[in-house]
């Protein structure tokens, strides 16, 4: 049993050790690849071993660095604490890193000075897994800093894009503001409670609410909101995201945002236990709803493939934070489930974007088109990702969004507060706008007409397709068998978030929680309706196959399906229309015209309407809104910092007015 104790730290250490070894031993690319893959795989295996004790048996593993156990009920050393909530996020993270590592073998093959890519990648992986597993608030801050460092360095290392440097710089400035605020918050916490251990803080802080703890909570909340790209802080994140290499932007949107989400849930549900006050719930849901809406409306107006996906990450994070802010068990379940789904389908979409960029070299929506003929596998993966993110039934996006709507509307109906009805309506409408923007991408990139210079485009190499297949499969599986998935992964995590007695006891020794009288949060019974997607899906497939057979075979006698250049061409049997049965000749064009696209008679030439030409009606109606919003996203560092400062002031004022 004692070996299991060390697994959490070992998981983090293997990643950092891997980074260190790559710097020393990594002379040629093969060694670097092997070392990176080995480090990520070992760490993944270690975390998987933790599933049985933590998730299934509900145990909470605590580990003191250097064996410094608490002395006289006072935590001294740095503690690692793995409960269901942390482990779920850690597992999600490590799978995302594993897939991105495999993907980057193919994606990064041609790039120059690749030496430091894997070092930074493993630092990023180690720091984010460490962030999820640590039980010490200052340690969380350090891990967040390492994540920011390596993410900025990886973004800046993208030599192809000249604007990569600018994106990295803005991201660094924005995250530094966030982390300075967090550090100030931690200082105020230490000032008040003289300890940094999360478990012990969870016993001290919920009791006494005075000005310093309130200010500390506000500052740390801001720090994690910056990290999870809430609305005023999202702009620099989107810039960094657009220019990072695709395997990194998959991690940026999949994992780095989840740090902020995990941090928010950890401090508001367990450490400060302030989530059950209605004003914090309104603040978080307001943050989520505004982010949701602005993220998706901005995404509709984008011309760049990855910038559109980045704005979607921001909007999906709005869903997650809004659902987490509801403080009902169904809300948190929906939020965590959507966090996991978001990593899956957003990662899949970014990998497809990477494959497209790898093949065509450009990610501009107006310049692409008709790639599905040359890249069918990527197109299918993209379709699955697009359907999942817009929440169409058999896929996983639908299940989590469905939980979020139910939780939001149940909250609205039970508390009778119309505000939550507005949240539900916005969530539903934003979901259709997500579908709209992915229809735009689908048409501009994959369907539609193929450009001349993209004729020779080749499909993504196998090593890049492999992670895409895994993610597509996961997207579909978590969508259909969602009951099993949520009972194993999400149920324990929600239970761990709501009642922290086991969390405190395992850290500080038995009976500590009763000693200091910390009441657990009221967890309402997790009941949500289920429709059996499995039956629906099986029926769907059976009838789909039957309909295919009927439609495609039945046209035999009544006129064959003719592809261009088909042999059977005309009822008159002579292969072309120019001579009829009576031997009379007609002046007709070449027979291929029959299969050309109908151009009102003109010769069919390349005229692909994609990218910014779509949704004219919508943009025309909202052009004032778009002028104002695109003006706000001015791209200059000062503006983004100014928005951050304004938002910090607003949150602190909100805290003092309502949270007293």
């Amino acid at each position: 049993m004692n070996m299991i104790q060390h697994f959490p730290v070992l998981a983090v250490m293997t990643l950092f050790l891997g980074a260190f070894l790559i710097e020393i031993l990594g002379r040629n690319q093969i060694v670097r690849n092997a070392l990176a893959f080995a480090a990520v795989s070992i760490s993944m295996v270690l975390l998987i071993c933790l599933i049985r004790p933590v998730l299934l048996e509900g145990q909470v593993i605590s580990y003191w660095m250097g064996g410094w156990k608490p002395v006289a009920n006072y935590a001294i050393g740095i503690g690692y604490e793995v409960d269901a909530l942390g482990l779920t996020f850690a597992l999600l993270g490590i799978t995302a890193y594993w897939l991105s590592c495999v993907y980057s073998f193919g994606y990064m093959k041609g790039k120059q000075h690749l030496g430091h890519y894997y070092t930074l990648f493993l630092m990023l992986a180690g720091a984010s897994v460490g962030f999820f597993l640590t039980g010490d608030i200052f340690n969380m801050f350090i891990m967040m800093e390492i994540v920011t460092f390596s993410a900025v360095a990886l973004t800046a290392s993208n030599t192809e894009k000249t604007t990569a440097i600018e994106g990295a710089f803005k991201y660094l400035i924005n995250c530094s503001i966030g982390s300075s605020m967090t550090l100030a918050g931690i200082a105020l916490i230490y000032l008040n409670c003289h300890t940094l251990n999360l478990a012990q803080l969870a016993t001290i802080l919920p009791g006494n609410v005075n000005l310093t703890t309130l200010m500390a909570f506000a500052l740390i909340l801001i720090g994690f909101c910056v990290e999870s790209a809430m609305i005023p802080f999202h702009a620099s994140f989107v810039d960094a995201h657009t220019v990072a290499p695709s395997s990194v932007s998959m991690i940026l949107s999949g994992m780095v945002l989840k740090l902020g989400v995990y941090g928010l849930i950890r401090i508001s549900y367990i450490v400060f236990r302030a989530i059950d006050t209605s004003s914090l719930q309104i603040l978080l849901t307001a943050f989520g709803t505004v982010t949701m809406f602005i993220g998706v409306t901005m995404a509709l107006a984008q011309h760049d493939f990855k910038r559109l996906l980045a704005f979607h990450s921001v909007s999906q994070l709005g869903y997650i934070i809004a659902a987490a802010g509801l403080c009902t068990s169904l809300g948190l379940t929906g939020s965590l489930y959507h966090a996991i789904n978001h990593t899956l389908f957003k990662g899949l979409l970014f990998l497809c974007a990477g494959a497209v960029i790898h093949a065509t070299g450009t990610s501009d929506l107006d310049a692409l088109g008709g790639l599905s003929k040359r890249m069918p596998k990527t197109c299918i993966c993209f379709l699955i990702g697009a359907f999942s993110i817009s929440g169409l039934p058999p896929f996983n996006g639908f299940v989590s969004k469905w939980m979020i709507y139910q939780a939001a509307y149940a909250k609205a109906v039970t508390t009778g507060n119309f505000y939550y009805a507005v949240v539900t309506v916005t969530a539903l409408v934003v979901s259709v706008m997500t579908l709209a923007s992915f229809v735009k991408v689908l048409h501009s990139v994959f369907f539609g007409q193929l450009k001349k210079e993209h004729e020779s485009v080749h499909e993504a190499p196998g090593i890049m397709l492999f992670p895409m297949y895994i993610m597509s499969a996961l997207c579909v599986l978590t969508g259909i068998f969602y009951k099993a998935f949520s009972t194993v992964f999400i149920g324990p995590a929600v239970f761990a978030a709501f009642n922290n007695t086991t969390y405190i006891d395992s850290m500080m020794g038995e009976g500590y929680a009763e000693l200091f009288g910390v009441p657990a949060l009221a967890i309402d019974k997790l009941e949500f309706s289920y429709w059996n997607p499995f039956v629906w899906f099986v029926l769907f497939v059976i009838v789909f196959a039957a309909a295919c057979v009927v439609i495609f075979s039945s046209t035999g006698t009544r006129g064959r399906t003719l592809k261009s250049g088909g042999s059977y061409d005309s009822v008159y049997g002579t292969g072309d229309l120019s001579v009829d049965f009576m031997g009379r000749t007609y002046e007709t064009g070449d027979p291929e015209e029959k299969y050309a696209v109908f151009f009102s008679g003109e010769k069919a030439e390349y005229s692909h309407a994609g990218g910014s030409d779509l949704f004219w009606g919508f943009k025309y109606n909202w052009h004032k809104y778009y002028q104002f919003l695109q003006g706000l996203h001015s791209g200059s560092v000062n503006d983004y910092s100014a928005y951050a400062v304004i938002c910090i002031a607003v949150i602190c004022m909100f805290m003092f007015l309502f949270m007293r």
Partner: protein
Amino acid sequence: MFENLIKKSAMKSPWLFHINAGSCNGCDIEIVAVTTTLYDAERFGFKLVGSPRHADIVVVSGPVTMQSKERLIRTLAQVPEPKCVVSIGSCPQSGNVFKGSYAIDGPLEKYVHVDVAVAGCAPKPQAIMEGLYEAAQILEEKREMIRKAKKGVKGSGVIEVPAAAGTAQVSAAAAPASTAAPESTEAAPEAFAAAEPAAAAAVESTEKEVASK
């Protein structure tokens, strides 16, 4: 198994696609008049559709001008089999008043086998209705031809087809009650020559009619 249902329904819902090969819009207005309340083509299932891919009967009006020739040929090729071509007015048959002008490229017969030719310089809606109804019958015969041809040859591609009916001629003065006897005309050039007197006759008959009204 739906063989007879398809045979019956092919007659009952022929969809029209109108190509204006340089017409003076006189015939175009008449074609639209056919779908108005008084003549109501929709009773027989006729419907004007927007794309040649959906069409059964292609309605062509106007002398095939130089500009519209190439576009006419391309659009006609894009209509799925079995299809019929109905020419409205005398212009597609003989070029009417524009005959001999440098700008037109001869009768419609040069480009496609015209199944029904509704003569008249702006034929009456009743005549157009008669012509369309005639075309629906011919459409049915063509479908039979395809089915028989297809039964004979299993997927070898080249189909031998027995002889089909010639161009049914609907004269302009045809009263709705009278059924126009389908005359069969010989080769295209003669048809061009033969059609001329008919067109001339048609022109006088409409003037007589106008005068008599």
